[in-house]
């Protein structure tokens, strides 16, 4: 048995039944990372010593039959955007290259208190800005299915690490598609929860009105399992409402007979790869065979979502990035004793090209005289996009779409064309603007590259998209396919 191929839930069961130890599992994952991560580049920091001692601690507790959290002893990889006390947390930015936070993000605290094994911190597009993993301030991540291609982004390392069996599951963030799209490119399962479902305290902010946190896993059941552990109100993040957390693992077992699945025509436009289109349509057929009803729907403002996003996101970025000023933490260029020079030199040498680009777009959009034409307008269009979904969800349970118009592209292909990179998020951004939940799961291959489907659900109705996804995986095996890394 390859211990590193087990799902998180299988790992939990195996540990509980004493079939293997957490130390064995952890060592197996570390071995996998050491064998293949020089090719993939999924990790920025390995947490080997702490991981092994945590694993041994869990093993001792299991031996003495102590009661433990279901996450205990399971190796997890965490996007380097999350603050981890005592472990370098860089946001994949040179401006935080050596930053070791003195506290844990709330979700990390949950994992640590549950005796989860943090195996390492994963690579990403700098501060989560990008959709390819190439904008890391350190090195790009490669797709385990074809290392000449991108893994998607911004949770590039978190998706690649799961696909390459370098961890049992990982945590990522999704602002405009950053969990769903890399999961799709790497044949993993990725859940973007509803805005506010999971606490963001201690996770570096990018676009505060859109940022969400979620798991990337080996199957939908694991996504349900992990969400159940990390969802809920946190008084340290006042955007988390006291909305009930469902028993997802139980909910997903219910069948989907009579489930109403909407197929929006705006997601089957020109520019969508033919094979991708066919994969989504065969998935729709599969859902019908399982007793769901597939219905044509329309989300008329879809086409404006990317434009609204690329005003809202940079505007909030320009504000959020202002904190990296070389005064309180991180890089500080103090060659000159003038305060203005300190700011200029620190930001100029610390931020990468895409971060600078977004700061400038945002600064422009928010500058005197432009607010109404850009930011206000974008926030109004956001309302229209949101209303599209709310109206559709009045008589539809789940919306089925592609995650991305194409499979993974080659590294370097879009480097000098940021706009092309932005348009790759065309199918994930609308749900982000509406704050609804979305699940990306494997549904086939195009030219040997993984293709995912996206299931969108109502706010705080993760249980329904997880149920549809889980039932789909009961009758398909795409999610079990593994890359041959070379």
């Amino acid at each position, binding site marked *: 048995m390859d211990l590193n191929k087990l799902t998180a839930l299988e790992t939990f069961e195996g540990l509980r039944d004493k079939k293997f130890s957490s130390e064995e599992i952890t060592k197996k994952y570390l071995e996998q990372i050491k064998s293949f991560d020089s090719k993939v580049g999924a990790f920025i920091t390995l947490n080997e010593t702490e991981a092994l001692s945590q694993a041994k601690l869990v093993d001792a507790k299991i031996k003495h039959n102590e009661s433990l959290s279901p996450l205990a002893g399971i190796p997890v990889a965490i996007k380097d955007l999350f603050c981890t006390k005592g472990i370098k947390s860089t946001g994949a930015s040179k401006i935080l290259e050596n930053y070791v*936070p*003195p*506290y844990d993000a709330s979700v990390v605290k949950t994992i640590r208190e549950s005796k989860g094994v943090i195996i390492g911190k994963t690579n990403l597009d700098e501060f989560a800005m990008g959709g390819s993993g190439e904008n890391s301030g350190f090195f790009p991540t490669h797709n385990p299915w074809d290392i000449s291609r991108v893994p998607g982004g911004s949770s590039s390392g978190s998706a690649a690490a799961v696909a390459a069996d370098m961890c049992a599951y990982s945590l990522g963030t999704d602002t405009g598609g950053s969990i769903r799209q890399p999961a799709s490119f790497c044949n993993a399962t990725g859940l973007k929860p*509803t805005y*506010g479902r999971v606490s963001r305290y201690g996770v570096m902010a990018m676009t505060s*009105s859109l940022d969400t946190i979620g798991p990337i896993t080996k199957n939908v059941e694991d996504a349900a399992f992990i969400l159940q552990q990390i969802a809920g109100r946190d*008084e340290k993040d*006042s*955007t988390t409402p006291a909305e009930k957390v469902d028993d997802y693992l139980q909910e997903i077992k219910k069948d989907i007979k009579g489930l109403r699945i909407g197929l929006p025509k705006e997601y089957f436009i020109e520019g969508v790869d033919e094979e991708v289109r066919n994969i989504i349509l065969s998935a729709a057929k599969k859902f019908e065979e399982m007793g769901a009803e597939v219905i044509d729907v329309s989300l008329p*403002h879809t*086409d*404006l979502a*990317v*434009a*609204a996003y*690329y*005003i809202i996101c940079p505007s909030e970025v320009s504000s959020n990035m202002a904190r990296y*000023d070389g*005064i*309180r*933490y*991180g890089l*500080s260029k*103090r060659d000159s*004793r*003038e*305060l203005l020079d300190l*700011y*200029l*030199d620190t*930001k*100029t040498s610390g*931020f990468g090209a895409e971060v*600078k*680009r977004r*700061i*400038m*777009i945002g*600064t*422009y959009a928010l*500058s005197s005289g432009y607010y109404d*034409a*850009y930011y*206000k*307008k*974008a*926030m*109004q*269009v*956001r*309302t*229209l996009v*949101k209303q599209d979904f709310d109206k559709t969800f009045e008589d539809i349970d789940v919306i089925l779409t592609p995650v991305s118009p194409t499979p993974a592209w080659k590294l370097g292909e879009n480097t000098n064309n*940021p*706009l092309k990179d*932005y348009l790759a998020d065309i199918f994930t951004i609308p749900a982000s*603007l*509406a*704050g609804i939940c979305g699940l990306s799961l494997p549904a086939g291959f195009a030219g040997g590259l993984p293709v995912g489907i996206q299931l969108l659900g109502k706010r*705080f109705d993760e249980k329904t998209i997880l149920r549809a996804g889980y039932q789909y995986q009961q009758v398909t095996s795409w999610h079990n396919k593994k890359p041959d890394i070379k």
Partner: protein
Amino acid sequence: MKLSKAEVEHIAKLARLNLTDQDANLYSQQLSDILDYVEKLQTINTDGVEETSQVTGLVNVMRDDEIQESGISNELVGSAPENSNGYVKVPKIL
């Protein structure tokens, strides 16, 4: 929407970024392309449409104004590139 090199330099200054000549030229092109694309927003009438900034409908979340010790104030101040006696040091401003 064409952003001139001078406009890009002005925006960079507002954003506290230094640009080389080469950067300014490149950004002038790339930012113009992006702004051209977002012009799309002007094609739709949004008169009377409310802005959405909080999507789940939460309004101000209040709590009592009570002091809670973080227990890590020394570490937080200690993260500052220059600090002394529990204070963050900054260059002279005036």
